[in-house]
Each structure stands twice: as structure tokens, then as C-alpha cells.
């Protein structure tokens, strides 16, 4: 909402300096976004009198002028035909920036005559399109005075960011009311003079609604003014409209715009000659369309309200008028409309049609019903004043009157909510200045404040005008004494732990979009219709992600395009299995590409290389270990279809509790994601990891350690190539449970020296004696049991 300082002062009698006005606006909740000084643009331009204009000796079309610009007379060469001795105009000395030409004026010699500046046209000052002649000022314009000040172009423009609850502040008068309430001056907004019509308005208005739709147009006032002259509006009005960014059109249209901003009361004017028969206000019919004042055609439907005449739709109610019945310089008889519309319906229609107008802005916030008829009178008065003519009597369809809202308001509410007393006298005075009626433990809300609905809103009025700083700063008492108790849930703690653990594995944390492309979502098991956005901002951000990995792969690719090829990223964030409130999971995932092995990154003298599936497995296991569940997790070869079938594993706690997976991404998935592999990844759903058992004590279980020395033996087996290391380890453990405490795999070999289709797996077995040192015979017997057990389960034999 923009307005100028002088416009504000039409409504507010104040001597406060502008800085105080601006501070106060922000302080009462009308946040000042910017203050523009338009005169900055006219820096250097001064009022000047042409002392003498004589023919240029060397050019027919030029004149040499001696100009009084306040100081020593200056000589300029001028090409304008209207330059003449004795006239007053606007002079710019050498060094002035000319906005209309985007140049800085330099001293010149034109056809042999010195020129020390310029007499300016309206176009050069961007004050109009006229560049034929120079600006002519009245004879009494004082030479030497800055032109902007003399012409009233130095009126500061204040832009206020309005919150959507303040329809009253969409007019300068409402803003002045707040300032007056805050003690910055006296409100002096004149009440519109009622206009006595001389004849009946020949156009009738019909509100054609079903009773249940009556709210769509509570009231519609109309008046004809005949015999008007619709030329340009006066300078003062044009200046104000231009200052707030509106383009003056003609007096009738400018009057509607002016009242819109002056009082927050949008109006519409129809050219009576172009309206056929009566006006009907009704729902639009499906398939109808209207050519609006912005030159565009809008397709309408039954949810929208229109104003139609005998021929068809003439106006989109409360939003924009129609081109056909618009007023132009030929308009002789004008119909002035002042109506009330349903805010919700206006908002809906505006959104649907994509039209943003000053009228919609106000009607969807709710304009003052009590100003509906005075608004029509105010506009009529301005038409009579600026365009002449003769007014009809006003006709009103519907009824704009509405009872004022009463709110029970025990004054103690102020202290209850803000924690300090604002004296009752002061608080009630504020309410009164804002237009509230106070008495008997209740307040009556003025018609222009539909936002004030409950006690708290009344407190807010007092607080914001008295000043938010009046509320003290009071410590919030603790709910319980002493050291605060821990507040994080298990999942919250695990989420944090996952992040720190993965970062400690040299992974970099990424935060990627929660939405990904449909293609990517489908590849990773998502893409169902319930998780598709109805209004995505881009086609590759269309579906809620079923996995963190596609987003991370995309991030890896973005880095690769910047020649950062070795990338290891992780993310801990939400994934979506469905749109229900229990379908969201917290996942942790990492992606490695290029030389980012878990053991060390990049090419290095000490070794390294390109990532493989075991880097992903290590990341996953490190995370599960940090969560305290690594020792019970099962690793089952193979995984979801987006992984390499031979280089992937599923992590589970039993077949029904799958917690995640690791592996190399399937080459065809990399191709579909437009990513260069090999890429390895893992993903674990943190919610799915079993919770630790609740324990009654923080004490750790007693350490069990033997004084007897453990015995280690190495065993190399030759097995079929299809036999998995885990099967051999499991069989060895099962064969001698009482003594074996640990089994490691320290060598895997396949190739020369072994039969085709077989491999060697070497394990080291730790035997821990329980009661006494083992004899050699006992050790041999245990080892023999292990070998036999492994052979039986896997067909492996001890390597010779």
C-alpha cells in the first residue's frame, strides 16, 4: 500500500517530521517497506525565466536564450519553437542527469554559440510524452527555486507492507486513523457530502441470487451522472496516482482509483451509453467469457459473480470491469457503482482467473460496509467537481447495513495476556480513537475492522497502539526445579547419532529436496499417485521421495558436472511410503562414487582406489554399530531391483524386519538417472532398527574375562566357488560352541593352484578355555570337530 506524505496529511493534521511518522507506522504494525524521495530524480532542475530569446545567427530553427535561473544569467541554445522572451520554464544546468534521455548534460557549442544547459521538455523529465516544446510554467513561478519543490514533485512516497487482516489500512484514511490513535496528530478525514439526486436513475439493478447466495452481494448502489466531460484528471490527482505507480487514464477512471486508495473503497464506472437495459448481478454461466479492461478475455464459470446487462456480462464483480462498457473521453453519461462483495468468493475468483487488482485486494480483505453508500456519494461529488454533470438519485439494491460486532471485554484481559497493566483510561482512549465504542464490559467493533473478533484481538489493538515495548521481559518459570531432564526421543537421538557417525566416515552431509522426479521415484519403489504433487514447481520435483538415494545421486552428478568426480555424500531425512500420517520414515543413506573408498579418498601414494560394494557395506555396518544393533543384524545376499543383483545385500532382523540395504547401483538405474557409475550406496530406515531393551540400571554388565590364555588356529578351506564366507563361519561356530569365541576371515583366494570353480577361504579360530588350560589333544579334537562341521555343512575340505 503506497501513499504520499501530502496525501496522508489530507487526513491527518500533524506537525510530526516524516521520520517520526515512519517509525510510528512500523511501531503500530504498518511496517514501512520503503520511503522514496521522488525529487531525487529531479536533482538540479530549477525554475527559470527566459530573459531574452533571439534567433541563432547560424541556424533557422534554433534560438539563443539568456536565462535567469537564480544566479548569473546563462546562455543556452534551444530548438523548441515555443521558446520566447519572458516565458518561464524548467532549466537544467551543465552536469544535470536528464532522466528522459539517460544522459548527463555537458557544456556544448552549437553552430558556434555556447550552450550552458538546457530548457527541458516534459519528456526529458519523464513527466509526459510531450517532447515537441519546452515546459511552460506560469509567470509567477519563482526563478531559481528547485523545480521539484515548486511543482510538488518532492512529495515522499511511503510504501507499507499490509498484513492481510487490515482492510481498513488499504486506504490512506485508515492509515491516518492509526497514526492519530498513536498520538501523532488529529484525524481530519472529511465525511462525504450526501448528494441529492435530481432525477431517478434510469438503470435498475437486480440482485439475481438464490436466498442461500445472498451473501455474494449484500448491497449494490448505483447512480447516473449525465452530461459529464471526461478529460484528463487535474494535475494534483494525476501526480498522486503517478506517485503510487498508477497510470492516469481519464478523470472518471482516475476518480475510482483515487477513492480506492484514499478510502479503501473500490468503485466501478460504466459508460451509460454502452449499457443496454438494466444491470443484473448474478452468478456467471458456465462457458461465458468477458473481455476485461486489461484487454484480456476471461472464461467464466458459475462460481464467479458478474454484472450483466441485456446484452451480456459487463464486469467481473469486485475484480475488474469489462472493456465494452468502460469510460473514455467520449463518455457523456456515467453510471457509478459502489457495491459489497463476499470476500471469500472474490479471493476464489481472483485466484482462479489469475487477476490481481486493487479492487480484488480490498474486497477479499473485506471493505467497510458502512462506507458503501458514502463511497458512492464521495465519487459522485468528485465527478461533479471534475467533470460537471447532473446526478440522479442513488438506487440501492440489497442492504449494506450490518450490526456492529459486540465483544465481551473484561479489561483484566490486558494484564492476563501481556503480563502488565496498561491503565484502563489509556486503553479505552486508544479503542475510542480507533473507532471502537467502549462500555459495560464490552466493546463494539467499528464496521471497518472485520478482523477484530475476540478479546485477544481487542488486547492487540491496545498493545500495538500503546507500544509493544510496554510489555516487560519476564523470565518463564521452570516447570521443575533443578537440572533439565533429557528431552530427545530414541529416534531423535538415533537421527543425530547417524549424522555424526556417517560424517565421521568421511561422508559429507547433504540436504536434498523431499521431492524428486517421477522416473526416479518409480525406480526406487515409489511414484504412486498418492505421493504425486498436484502443483510441482518443476517436472523433476514432482513426487515425494521413497528413498534418499535418488536425490543424493543427483547431487553426485551435479558435482561431477563441476569436475568433482570423487564424491561421498550422506543424508539423514524423511522418506515417504504413502501419504498417511504414519507413512513417513526417517532414513539414513550414503552414496559414494569414484575414488572415495572408506579407507581413504583420492589417488594416494599409500594406495586407494574406486569404491566397491564393501565400502557401502562398511558405511551401513558402522551406522548399525553406532545404533547398537550391528551384532544382531543379518546380511542376506541380494537386494531391491535397483541394485546390482550380485553386489548387494539386504540388512534385516529376521525376514519381516528389513532395516535397509547396501550395494552397487544397477547399471541400468544409473543410466536412467543419467549418472555415471559405478556408484555404491546404502540406506537404513532408522525407525525400523530394534530399540534397546529398557534396563533398570545404568550399570554395565559385569566383564567376563578368563585368566586362561586363548588359543588361535588358522584353517584354510577349499570350497565350491558358490559357497559364501558366512556359511563357513556359521558352520565353524556351530561345530564347537563351547570353546569358539571368535572367527575371522583373513584370506580369500580363487585362481591358480585351485581346481576350476572352487575357492579357498582361510579363517582364524579363537578357542577360549573355560576351566583349565587345554591339552594339545583337546585342541586337536576341537579343531577336528570344526573341520568336520564345516565340511558337512558346505562341502569344503581342509586345504593341504
Amino acid at each position: 500500500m503506497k501513499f504520499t506524505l501530502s496525501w496522508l496529511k489530507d487526513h491527518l493534521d500533524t506537525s510530526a517530521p516524516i521520520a517520526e511518522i515512519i517509525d510510528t507506522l512500523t511501531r503500530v504494525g504498518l511496517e514501512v517497506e520503503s520511503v522514496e524521495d521522488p525529487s531525487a530524480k529531479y536533482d538540479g532542475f530549477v525554475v527559470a525565466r527566459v530573459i531574452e530569446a533571439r534567433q541563432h545567427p547560424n541556424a533557422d530553427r534554433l534560438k539563443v536564450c539568456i536565462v535567469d535561473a537564480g544566479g548569473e544569467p546563462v546562455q543556452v541554445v534551444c530548438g523548441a519553437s515555443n521558446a520566447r522572451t519572458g516565458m518561464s520554464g524548467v532549466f537544467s544546468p551543465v552536469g544535470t542527469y536528464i532522466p528522459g534521455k539517460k544522459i548527463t548534460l555537458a557544456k556544448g557549442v552549437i553552430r558556434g554559440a555556447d550552450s550552458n544547459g538546457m530548457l527541458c521538455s516534459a519528456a526529458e523529465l519523464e513527466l509526459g510524452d510531450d517532447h515537441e516544446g519546452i515546459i511552460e510554467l506560469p509567470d509567477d513561478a519563482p526563478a531559481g527555486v528547485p523545480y521539484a519543490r515548486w511543482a510538488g514533485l518532492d512529495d515522499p512516497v511511503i510504501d507499507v507492507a499490509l498484513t492481510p487482516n487490515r482492510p481498513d489500512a488499504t486506504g490512506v484514511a485508515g492509515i491516518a486513523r492509526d497514526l492519530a490513535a498513536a498520538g501523532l496528530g488529529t484525524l481530519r478525514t472529511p465525511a462525504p457530502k450526501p448528494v441529492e439526486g435530481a432525477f431517478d436513475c434510469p438503470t435498475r439493478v437486480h440482485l439475481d441470487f438464490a436466498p442461500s447466495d445472498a451473501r455474494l452481494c449484500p448491497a449494490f448502489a448505483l447512480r447516473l451522472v449525465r452530461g459529464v466531460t471526461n478529460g484528463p484528471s487535474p494535475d494534483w490527482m494525476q501526480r498522486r496516482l503517478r506517485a503510487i505507480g498508477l497510470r492516469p487514464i481519464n478523470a472518471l477512471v482516475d476518480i475510482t482509483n483515487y477513492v480506492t486508495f484514499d478510502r479503501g473503497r473500490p468503485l466501478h464506472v460504466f459508460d451509460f451509453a454502452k449499457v443496454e437495459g438494466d444491470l443484473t448481478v448474478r452468478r456467471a454461466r458456465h462457458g461465458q467469457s468477458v473481455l476485461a479492461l486489461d484487454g484480456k478475455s476471461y472464461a467464466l464459470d458459475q462460481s464467479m459473480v458478474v454484472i450483466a446487462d441485456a446484452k451480456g456480462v459487463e464486469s467481473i464483480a469486485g475484480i475488474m470491469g469489462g472493456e465494452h462498457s468502460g469510460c473514455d473521453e467520449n463518455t457523456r453519461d456515467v453510471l457509478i457503482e459502489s457495491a459489497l462483495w463476499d470476500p471469500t468468493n472474490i479471493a476464489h475468483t481472483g485466484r482462479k482467473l489469475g487477476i490481481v487488482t486493487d479492487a480484488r485486494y480490498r474486497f477479499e480483505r473485506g471493505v467497510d460496509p458502512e462506507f458503501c453508500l458514502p463511497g458512492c456519494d464521495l465519487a459522485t461529488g468528485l465527478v461533479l467537481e471534475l467533470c460537471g454533470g447532473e446526478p440522479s438519485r442513488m438506487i440501492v439494491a440489497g442492504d449494506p447495513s450490518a450490526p456492529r460486532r459486540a465483544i465481551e471485554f473484561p479489561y483484566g484481559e490486558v494484564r492476563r495476556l501481556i503480563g502488565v497493566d496498561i491503565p484502563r483510561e489509556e486503553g479505552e482512549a486508544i479503542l475510542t480513537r480507533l473507532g471502537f465504542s467502549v462500555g459495560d464490559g464490552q466493546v463494539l467493533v467499528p464496521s471497518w475492522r472485520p478482523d477484530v473478533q475476540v478479546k485477544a484481538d481487542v488486547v492487540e489493538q491496545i498493545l500495538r497502539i500503546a507500544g509493544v515495548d510496554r510489555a516487560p521481559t519476564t523470565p518463564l518459570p521452570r516447570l521443575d526445579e533443578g537440572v533439565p531432564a533429557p528431552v530427545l526421543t530414541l529416534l531423535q537421538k538415533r537421527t543425530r547419532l547417524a549424522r555424526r557417525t556417517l560424517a565421521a566416515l568421511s561422508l559429507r552431509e547433504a540436504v536434498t529436496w523431499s521431492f524428486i522426479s517421477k522416473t526416479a521415484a518409480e525406480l526406487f519403489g515409489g511414484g504412486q499417485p498418492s505421493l504425486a504433487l498436484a502443483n510441482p514447481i518443476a517436472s523433476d520435483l514432482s513426487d515425494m521421495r521413497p528413498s534418499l538415494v535418488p536425490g543424493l545421486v543427483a547431487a553426485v552428478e551435479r558435482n561431477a558436472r563441476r569436475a568433482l568426480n570423487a564424491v561421498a555424500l550422506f543424508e539423514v531425512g524423511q522418506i515417504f511410503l504413502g501419504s498417511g500420517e504414519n507413512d513417513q520414515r526417517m532414513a539414513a543413506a550414503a552414496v559414494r562414487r569414484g575414488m572415495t573408498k572408506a579407507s581413504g579418498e583420492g589417488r594416494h601414494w599409500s594406495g586407494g582406489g574406486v569404491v566397491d560394494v564393501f565400502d557401502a557395506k562398511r558405511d551401513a555396518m558402522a551406522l548399525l554399530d553406532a545404533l547398537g544393533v550391528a551384532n544382531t543384524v543379518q546380511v542376506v545376499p541380494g537386494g531391491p531391483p535397483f541394485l546390482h543383483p550380485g553386489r548387494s545385500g539386504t540388512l534385516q532382523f529376521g525376514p519381516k524386519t528389513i532395516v535397509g540395504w547396501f550395494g552397487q547401483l544397477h547399471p541400468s538405474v544409473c543410466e536412467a538417472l543419467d549418472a555415471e557409475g559405478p556408484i555404491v550406496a546404502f540406506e537404513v530406515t532408522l525407525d525400523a532398527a530394534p530399540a534397546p531393551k529398557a534396563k533398570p540400571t545404568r550399570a554395565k554388565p559385569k566383564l567376563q574375562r578368563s585368566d586362561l590364555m586363548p588359543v588361535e588356529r588358522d584353517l584354510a578351506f577349499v570350497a565350491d566357488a558358490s559357497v559364501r564366507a558366512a556359511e563357513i563361519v556359521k558352520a565353524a561356530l556351530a561345530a564347537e560352541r563351547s570353546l569358539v569365541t571368535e572367527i575371522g576371515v583373513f584370506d580369500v583366494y580363487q585362481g591358480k593352484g585351485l581346481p576350476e570353480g572352487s575357492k579357498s577361504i582361510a579363517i582364524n579360530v579363537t578357542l577360549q578355555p573355560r576351566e583349565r588350560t587345554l591339552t594339545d589333544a583337546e585342541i586337536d579334537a576341537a579343531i577336528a570337530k570344526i573341520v568336520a562341521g564345516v565340511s558337512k555343512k558346505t562341502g569344503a575340505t581342509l586345504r593341504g
Partner: protein
Amino acid sequence: MSDLAALQRETLAAIESASDEAALEAVRVGALGKKGSISARLATLGKLSPDERKMHGAAINALKDQVMEALAARRAVLKKAALEAQLEREAQDVTLPVRLPGVGTGRIHPLTQVMEEIVAIFAEMGFCVAEGPDIESDDYNFTKLNFPPGHPARDMHDTFFLRPDAHGERKVLRTHTSPVQVRTMLTQKPPIRIICPGRTYRTDFDQTHTPMFHQVEGLVVDQSSTLANLKWVLEAFCKAFFEAPHIGMRFRPSFFPFTSPSMEVDIQCRRSGGDIRFGEGDDWLEILGCGMVHPNVLTNCGTDPEVYQGFAWGMGADRLAMLKYGLPDLRDFFDADLRWIDHYGFKPLEVPTLAGGLSG
């Protein structure tokens, strides 16, 4: 006994010139071995008269002691030299670079860091951390929060919608974390003190807006909390978060459908170049919105506004991270540019604590 003197000379010279332990051992055997030169002399003593034996014996034994001492000394020198030679052989080029472990090279995103800082502060003040789903019902995201259907305040939110489901319900991506407040009030009895950190979504994408961003909201509901307490909580938070002894704050009246009275809060700062200092300067930066919980919201969530009251606030976590750590562009947060993460990220063990100072 000039020959004994000669033997002494020769033997000591041999010891001195032995270049390694083997040569030294040969000298020892030559002198003190069974057939050694000194041993031979000692063997001759038995044939001498007692007087001669006494005289010669003492001299030879003295020589023997002297030689043994010289041998020990020389052995020590040679051992030291051999060790030195070994160490020299074992020398390595320690200028070769090593790899830092993951605790040095891994990085935590600034947003995670800031979220943990915020939680640390509010946990100390006795606030729990509440969470809720990103995909919300229109009812929880808007209606229960006192956004009437069709109200222009909904327009301010630029909402992402999901496709209507089989029942015709159209879910939204939550535009703020306020629905978590609704969920908490519907399931917990006052007193309530929570913060709600989380992802939020609006259909905005330009230099200062991303379609996904992060908020931390707070809610206090009990029978006595006032706007004065709200001011204290926010001032205490800002001081702790920005780690400055004094933070200038400005509370401005504003509007949110779910609070009344409502305010926006600016903090005082000085900007010079890319640098921001807090607690000084003439600039004001908006950092959060807040207010007393609107009675309609309390009622909608099953809490009697005549008995209970409270306050709520919401702030952009991304924006707080940008301000505190001087991150210039919001869009970088979600781009995962390795150079950005390495530069602006935090090391894995830099866990924010109040005891150690949030930023260490």
C-alpha cells in the same frame, strides 16, 4: 717386564681399532680366551716363586682388568654406532602426505548444526522436541490454526498440494511446522513446552526462497504464560544462539491467523561487506514471528481458552544459519556442492554444547 707393556699397548690398540663387534670379539679371544695372550701370561704364574708371582700376578691382573674395561667401552661405542647405522638405514620420507581420518574430512551440514544448537538452548529451558509428518491435512495445516477457508492469509502460504485421494481429501505439504503444535495440543494436557523443528514447503523459488526450507516453532501453553514471558524466552534464545552478551531486539505488531496479539521480531545488526555483527549497528533484520496463541486455536485443539493461555513463535532455521555463519545464498543449502559443504560444514565431533559454547 717390557714385554707386558708391549702387550698392553698392542692389545689396547687392537681394541681401539676393532671396527665391529666381530673384530672386537676376536681381540677378546686373542687376549682373554683360553689361549689368549693375557691368559697365557696368567698361566705362567704358577711356575714362579711366590714373590715373583705376587709381583707379576698383580701386574698381569691389572692388565686383564684394563683390557676388559677397554673391551666393554669399545663394545658400547660399536653398539651405538651399529644402532645409529640401523636407524639411518630405516629413515623414511616423512614429508609424504597422510590421509586425515573421517573425523577430519567428514562434514555436518550447517543446518544440522544450527538445529542442534537451537535444540540445546531450548532443552536447557525445559522444552521438548515434537515432530510431525511433512504431508499434512488441510485441517491441521490451516483450519485448526484459524485460517478460515478462502482467507487471503492462505494465499500468503503458496501451498503445495497432493492429488486428492480416494475420499476426495486433498493433503498439503505443510507450509509451516505449526500443525505439530496442533498435534501436540490434541494429545497432551498443559503445561506444554515444545519446539517443533522440521521441513516446510512453499511454492516459491527465487534468490531468497526455496520450495523447501526449515522452521523451528515453539509453543508454551499453561495457565499463566504471558507476552512478557514470550519476550524473555526469545531474548534469552537470541543471546544464547548468537553468542553475544547483548542483542538489540525490536518487537513489531504483526498478523498471523493463529496468534493474537501477533508480533514480528527484528534483531539489531551491522552489515559491512559480507560480514554481519550482532548487538551493534543500525540495521534491523527480521528473524521470527510470534504471539499469544489465538483462542480459536486453543478451542480447535480441545483446550479451554478461558482457563489456558500461552504463546508460540516460528523462525526460519535456514535463515538463522545464514545469519550466524555468514552463508550468502539459501539455494546453496540444497545443492550439495562439495566445495560448499567442505567450507561451510562442521566437523563430526564439533557437537554443539552449552557447556563448551555452541560454536566451540
